[in-house]
């Protein structure tokens, strides 16, 4: 009897209590936006993350850092007790491996970019297909194609999900290079006719020309993607397709070459960029809360501080790159901010001065003279030529954050791509016209036909796009310069052309295979 009573009592308690909670997690500080995404007027909120992602291409701990530091343009040498990181050093010396944290960041960045686009596509495609929504879809497809292009270019193969695949515990399909290449070409070909021209959409948005330019880049490098390193001579070429796309952009006459090169790189460069040659700008705006990279801080010496800026004395450029220059080229140096900040734009070598003109000193009291030579393993404070490409706003109250819109694609690149494609396909004369168009715009001596070599085209690209980010690595590979020995870097094996798939990615997805010869 007693036992029955106990059992009954327990049963009663159990039943009573079981009803007290269903253990549904209560989330009070996050807004569930599932309502928002079902309304067509909110389409721009859905596409915004894809656009916001573009800013990550400028990351100094990810994409920008890696694409630049593996070349002769940028190096982060260790300086005694400062900047001591083998991840920086190995990028420059090509001793990088699958554990390099910056390569991991780069991979992750492109992967996040793809997902940001996929999520946007997932919700955009469910809305009423108004013109606005359709256009956002095409713009998003471009951003996704850009991520795929970089992954294919840097890593060879990569995993890819369609926007309809939303179970993130399922292992995605792996796109190998050939397949990825064809897919990027086909996607771009699909959206090019659908995308708006410059002027039809506001500044900063994806245009038809941007997609054409990306496709032109794919074609320009087609031989690299299908051939064998180091010369890639067995690869298929698509010079004509490249030339055709460049013609399309140039002939549409939506963009004009800038008369003032440095005006493209000033803090408030958006109006001039829009008026002249910028095809794909990435907008930064401190007042709107969209803050850029500390371009000036990472390179300048501690004692070159001004206004609200304090310096970190980090990266510099290399004698290899400096050797390509004619120092009278206006793109080498510009003094327009010198009276305000003490230093010139462009490349900084030699004694440095304060804004008042006084000689600056190092922290230990000797003269601050930037020397082009450095040691990647251990440099002094003043070794290495510095570069200020994106000019600061000396009066900025935002401290280190830069204001400049990022020049991702410019018309100059279209001319130089066409020049190269023509040169490589045998039309030297056509090539000469294109390169000289640029050189005369920049106020430097034009070349004679006999002087024009591939190296001159390669160097010209360096003068134009140094420290911009997306170009140098790609150029070095295509011109077979990537693996060669250069200052403070021994020759590297050709397998280094493809970056290693990060260990973290391999460990998360066993179906992903490491690139050849990497551990």
């Amino acid at each position, binding site marked *: 009897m*007693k036992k029955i*009573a106990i059992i009954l*009592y*327990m049963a009663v*308690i159990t039943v*009573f*209590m079981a*009803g*007290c*909670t269903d*253990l549904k*997690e*209560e*989330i009070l*500080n*996050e*807004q*569930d*936006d599932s309502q928002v*995404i079902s309304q067509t007027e*909110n389409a*721009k*909120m*859905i596409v*915004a*993350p894809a*656009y*916001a992602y*573009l*800013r990550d291409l400028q990351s100094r701990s990810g994409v920008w850092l890696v694409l630049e530091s593996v070349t002769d343009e940028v190096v982060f040498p260790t300086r*005694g*007790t*400062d900047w*001591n990181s083998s991840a920086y050093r190995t990028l420059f010396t090509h001793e990088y491996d699958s*554990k390099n944290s910056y390569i991991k960041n780069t991979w992750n960045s492109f*992967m*996040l970019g*793809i*997902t*940001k686009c996929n*999520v946007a596509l997932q919700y955009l495609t469910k809305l009423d297909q108004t013109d606005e929504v359709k256009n956002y879809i095409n713009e998003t497809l471009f951003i996704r194609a850009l991520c795929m292009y970089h992954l294919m270019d840097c890593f060879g193969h990569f*995993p890819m999900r369609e926007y309809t695949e939303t179970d*993130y*515990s*399922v*292992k*995605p399909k792996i796109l190998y290079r050939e397949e990825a290449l064809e897919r990027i070409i086909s996607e771009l070909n699909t959206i090019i006719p659908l995308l708006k021209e410059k002027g039809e959409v*506001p500044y*900063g*948005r994806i245009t038809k020309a941007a997609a054409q330019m990306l496709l032109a880049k794919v074609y320009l490098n087609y031989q690299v993607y299908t051939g064998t390193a180091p010369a890639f001579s067995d690869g298929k070429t698509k010079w004509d397709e490249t030339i055709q796309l460049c013609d399309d952009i140039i002939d549409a006459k939506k963009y004009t070459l800038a008369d003032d090169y440095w005006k493209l790189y000033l803090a408030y460069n958006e109006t001039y960029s*829009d008026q002249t040659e910028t095809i794909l700008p990435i907008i930064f*705006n401190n007042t709107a809360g*969209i803050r850029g990279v500390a371009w000036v801080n990472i390179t300048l010496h501690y004692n070159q501080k001004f206004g609200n800026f304090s310096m970190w004395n980090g990266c510099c450029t290399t004698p290899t790159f400096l050797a390509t220059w004619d120092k009278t080229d206006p793109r080498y140096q510009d003094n327009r901010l010198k009276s305000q900040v003490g230093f010139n734009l462009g490349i900084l070598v030699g004694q440095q001065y304060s804004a008042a003109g006084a000689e600056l000193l190092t*922290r*230990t009291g000797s003269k601050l003279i930037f020397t082009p030579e450095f040691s990647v*393993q*251990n440099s002094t404070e003043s070794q290495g030529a510095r570069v200020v490409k994106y000019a600061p706003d000396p009066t900025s109250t935002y401290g280190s954050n830069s204001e400049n819109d990022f020049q991702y694609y410019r018309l100059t690149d279209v001319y130089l791509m066409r020049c190269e494609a023509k040169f490589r396909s045998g039309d030297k004369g056509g090539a000469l016209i294109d390169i000289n168009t640029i050189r005369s715009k920049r106020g430097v001596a034009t070349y004679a036909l006999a002087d024009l070599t591939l190296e001159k085209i390669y160097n010209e690209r360096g003068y134009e796009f140094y420290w911009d980010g997306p170009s140098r690595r790609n150029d070095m590979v295509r011109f077979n310069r990537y693996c060669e020995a250069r200052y403070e870097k021994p020759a590297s094996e050709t397998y280094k052309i493809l970056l290693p798939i990060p260990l973290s990615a391999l*460990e*998360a*997805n066993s179906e992903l295979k490491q690139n050849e010869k990497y551990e």
Partner: protein
Amino acid sequence: MNIKHYSCNNTKFLCNRLVLIGFILFFIGATVQPMYANINSVMVTKAGEITLNVNNKPMREVLTLIEKQSKFIFVYNSENVNLSKSVTINVTSSSINEIMSMLLKGTTLTYEISDRQILILPATQGTKNDNKITVSGVVLDEAGNALIGVNVQVKGESSIAVTDMDGKYSLMTPANKSLVFSYVGYKRLEMKAQPQMNVHMISDADALNEIVVIGYGTMKKSDLTGSVSGVKSKDFNTGLVSSPSQLIQGRVSGVNITNNGGEPGGGVTIRVRGSNSIRSGQDPLYVVDGVPLDASEDQQPSGASLAGIGSSGKKNPLNFLNPDDIESIDILKDASATAIYGARGANGVIMVTTKKGTEGQSKVSYSGYASVSELPSEYSVLSADQYRKYAAEKGVTIEDGGASTNWQDEIFRTAFSKNHNLSISGGNKTSNYRISLGYLDQQGIIKKTGMEKYNGRFYLSQKALNNRLQIEASLMASRTMDQRAPLGESGGYEGDLLLTALKVNPTYPVYNEDGTYFQKSKDVRNPVAMIDLTNDNTKTDRILANITGTLEICKNLNYKMNVAFDQTQATRKVTQDEELIYMTDKGTVDINNVESGNKLIENYLTYKFDIKQIHKFDLLAGHSYQRFRNYWYSFSEEGFDVEDINYLYDLSFGNNTTITGLSDITVNELQSFFGRVNYNLLDKYLLTANFRIDGSTKFGENNKYGFFPSAAFAWRMNEEQFIKDLNFFDNLKLRASVGVTGNQEIPNKISQIMLGSTDGAILDGGSTVVQGITLTRTPNPDLKWERTEQKNIGIDFGIFKNRLSGNVDLFSKTTRDVLLQVYSISPAPTTQVWSNVPDMRIENKGIEVGLNGVIIDHKDWKWNVGINYSSIKNMVKNLPMSSITTGNPSGPGITGFSSQIIKSGYPIGTFWGYNFLGFDADGNSVYELDDNGSKVEKCIGNAQPDFSLNLNTSVSWKRFDLSLFFNSVVGNDIYNNLANVLDNLSMFSKGSNTTTHATTLSESFTNVLDYSSRYIEDGSYLRLSSATLGYNVPLKDKKWISNLRFSFTGNNLLLLTNYSGYDPEVNSSRTSNGVPSLGIGWTNYPMARSFSFGISADF
């Protein structure tokens, strides 16, 4: 209205009624026994000493007096024991043996003690003959009531008698045999047979010394099947103790307690039987009087953010408890003990039991101490003269500030602390109470740091309904006020207060000529200015209230309900004066506020029964619901440039139009069902089976409830004849247990998908930012708790009349379904996702040994020694990634490294880096290279010790007593991050100070500073943790003061170590990506050496 909802309301209604009844009962029923004067000449002090002052009194009367005042009960057969002899005796002793031998001196009588019963018998009886005798008598309970159904058995034989309605029994036995009396709920009694035996059985609950607190109940230590270690208040650590964890540091084997630094009330790292997890959330569960606490760190408001200083260390979450209110701390270690706490039991459970009133006269107690603390030794950096001289010698240009400043002298001080505790307690048969107040003012040895604490506690217990209902209520309220200095656990190259004091140029003056602070630059700061111009005050109020009602539904069936409410409100206010050179935005104010609380309601039933006194069962079944809420908000304002006014008092002086405000809230619930069966066969074989089903809101949709079972077996071998025949063991018990517990301490919300706002973009070419919406979390609906399987085998023993007792436990713990933030299968919304990693295991295998010996037990001399040893081997297996990195070094130039890794085949806390070999001819570091000439990265140390060994000993001579407590940890490595910044010459050439040691090196002034084995040091130490000399004042007239004791305690008197930092007991929090590090020394608040003078008195 659905049925569930209705039932729920109904239960709540019922609960409310019960609570209400409880309250009414308290106020009607609470009666306090009046004090009555004690004129007897037998006294028992608080400490258990018996004072006997009788003059020519018959022995029988003396025994009655002792019975009245002490816990002892005398049993004798008046037919053959003559107690009419008069005795004169004056003695005070805590040893009953001593008293009895004095009392029986000169008689033909002898005695035998069995627990509280003292059997007096003729000296010759024991060895007389083996004739059979008939034993008869009455068995009574403590109150003198007859006990019905008591089992009386001839030891080792089958003859059994059972007491009748009047408690009477009778049986035949050989004369030299013992009788065993047993009865559920009472202590077993074993006595030599005599013709007439009237015995008193003592209830289990009364013998507090033998009781340990387990989940949802208490248990006799002898009936335990699991591994539980208890520390009673008399064994607590002494001296300047501000938190409960310090009370038991080093007292329990298998429990590793490390102070994270010496800050008053500073944080501790407690690991019960090793690290079971990779992430944070490795702390044990704290249960105070049956209420599981939320002791997570997010109950503490964070401070101001400031470049170079890093976040300040967390304080000890148990600071709100007054150590003087604690009766005992029991630690549940094996799965059999912890499984009743299911998903929170994997890291061990610390059960804190507070003091209650005792039956008898009201007692007023006071205890207090005053103490002085100081820095044991300074860090040996160069003095101004040495600095100048060395620079001149080496031809290094230094900036000479013209002064000679010992920066350490400028920031450290001799600190004074005081503590007062006052309590009143008492009770009668149906109620008891205790009221206490505590005050602690502890100064830190760094200027402007300290902790002030006020505690109040009220406890009341009342029986009602013919003793069928017992209500217990406890209210604990505390206010803690922390004052802190800008000290950080990480920080950048500029350095926090302590790093600044150590590295700043000693030739710099403290003040400029105009009286302002000399502040070199934003990066080279003035530590005195940092202290003086920063105010960092935290006020924490916490209330813990709980009411327990126990209702006897019918005999042996009890219903118990426990309702608790725990609320914390903490506010931290930090102001930084605009005069500080590094304040780029002028003066700032940061106010951080945390409101945190939990509510608990538990209902459970217990039922005890037996079958023919052979099979005894003790059952428990219940339900528990707990809801946690944590809300914080903070705001910060900058731009203050007024002088001579506390910014907090008028926020409008700053940029009050641009105040930054933040807030966050988490709510989670835990619903559990639990049960336990204790089965006792013949008092020899004990079996326990536990289970708990825990449901948590934190778990994913597909795994809301987890099941955590355990089972244990114990064999009381000393009850077996073959062990008895050995005549060696007084106690011998073998224990074995196996079970599963969980760990649910994972962040909130991580299982769910989240569509939320993210960075926006400008889409119109202008400056309007469109906020973005995207997936901001990679969901994992399968997310669940970590499972820790634990096996334990242990032995308890007592030999030489229990003068040497101890235990040995071997255990093996394996954690599976390890919760980790792993890389997601990209492309995914986030790069990482929380996941229970399949196949991965974390293993802890260890041995624990505890030994206690009474070496001398003499009238005047007593000497006890206790030793505990534990050794744990930790190992990570099948980690799905090559390694997880954590423990990022801090300071100039060494960022970008990870000092520690978690890797398959290695223990947690493995230091991984370059192997430093020395310097080359140029003074640059040389490291071990591989065949390709690259620097080898390898295991260069481990933060987990090989073993820890603690020793406590106490010697007493008459009224003096001396106790010493040594603790030692052996074989652990420490990464001395501070030395990595200071103990080198690279930083010297940049204007930093350096150590005297570094000046003896052949290092180059431009050497690259790497993290390497150069700065891995042996962290082994032996510390004389405390030494106490006490004196109990003899009191002629105990009318007013019954006990008076003075004590003098020194803490941290002696430290033997090779570690070059201030103190090897360090653990700077360098959690990276949610993975905590171990054994990193940074600018940890140095451990003080302190001397305390204490008084305690009972009135």
